[in-house]
C-alpha cells in the first residue's frame, strides 16, 4: 500500500498508533455525542413548547420597537426571536417570509449570527461551568449592538 515506508520497524508502530487513536476517537466521540444529546434534546423540546404556547410571537411583538435603531421593520423581530429560541435554520426560514432589502438582510444576519440557539448552546456553556443565562443576555445585547453599529457604518461607508 505505502511504497515509501519499507522499514517494517517504522510501519508497525504507526499502524498501531493509528488504530489506537481511531478507537480512542470513536469512544470519546460516542461519549461526547451522548453528553450533547442529553443536553440538547430537552432544550429542543422546551423550544418547541415555547413556540406552541405562542411565547415566540408575544416576544416578537414586544421586540418590535427595538428594531427601528437597526433600520429594520418590526416584523424582523420574528426571525430574530425565532433564532434566539430555536436555531439559525429556523430563523432563516422566518426571514425568507419577509421582504427585506440587501443591507437589512446583512444587519439582521449579524444579530442572528451572534445570538441564536440560546437555550441549547447555553446548556453547553453551563456544562463548561459558565452561566447559560448570562451568556444568553450577552449574545442578545452584543448582537443588537453590533447590528446597530453596522447599520450606521453601512450608511457612512
Amino acid at each position: 500500500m505505502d511504497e515509501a515506508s519499507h522499514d517494517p520497524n517504522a510501519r508497525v508502530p504507526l499502524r498501531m498508533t493509528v488504530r489506537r487513536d481511531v478507537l480512542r476517537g470513536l469512544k470519546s466521540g460516542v461519549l461526547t455525542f451522548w453528553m450533547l444529546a442529553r443536553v440538547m434534546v430537552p432544550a429542543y423540546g422546551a423550544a418547541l413548547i415555547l413556540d406552541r404556547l405562542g411565547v415566540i410571537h408575544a416576544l416578537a411583538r414586544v421586540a418590535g420597537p427595538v428594531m427601528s435603531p437597526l433600520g429594520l421593520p418590526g416584523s424582523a423581530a420574528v426571525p430574530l426571536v425565532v433564532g434566539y429560541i430555536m436555531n439559525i435554520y429556523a430563523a432563516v426560514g422566518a426571514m425568507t417570509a419577509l421582504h427585506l432589502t440587501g443591507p437589512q438582510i446583512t444587519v439582521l444576519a449579524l444579530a442572528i449570527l451572534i445570538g441564536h440557539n440560546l437555550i441549547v448552546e447555553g446548556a453547553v456553556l453551563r456544562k463548561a461551568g459558565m452561566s447559560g443565562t448570562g451568556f444568553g443576555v450577552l449574545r442578545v445585547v452584543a448582537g443588537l449592538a453590533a447590528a446597530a453599529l453596522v447599520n450606521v457604518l453601512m450608511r457612512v461607508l
Partner: protein
Amino acid sequence: MGDLVRTFLSGTWDLCFKVFVIVVPIMVVLELLEGTGPWRALVRGWSRLVGGLGFTEETAAPTLVGFVFGIAYGGGIIVRDTKLHSLGRRQVFLMSVFLSMVHAIVEDSLVLIALGASAIWVVGFRLVWAAVVTLVLGTAAAVVARRRVT
C-alpha cells in the same frame, strides 16, 4: 398534541443524527491529529493570533474547534478540554465570550450569505467585533477579580 410529539420525535432524530455524524468524525480526526507536527503548528499559529486577547495555548485549541465547528458541535471538545487541562475560570470565560460572538464561522456564515447577507460585514466585521468584545470583557473581568482580592 399528537403532531407536537411527532415534530419532537422527528426533530430529535434529525438533531441527534446530525450531531452524531459531525461529532464522532471530529473526535477521531482530532485524536489522530493531536500530537502531530502540523496540528501543533496550527494551534501555535492560532494561539499567537488570539494570544493578544488573553488566551493560553491550552485554551486556544478548543477555541479553534468551536470557532470552526460551533458551540453545539464543538461543545464536546470545549467541555472535555475544560476538564482535561483543568482550564482556569478566566480562560473558560474568555473562550465563552469569544465563541459567543463568533462560532461555526463556515457553516453559519454561508447559510446567511446564501440568503443575501454581505460577507464582508457578516464575516470580517464579526471577527473584529469578537476580538473587541473579548478584549473589553476580559479586561473588565480582570479588574473585577483584582478588586475582589484587595
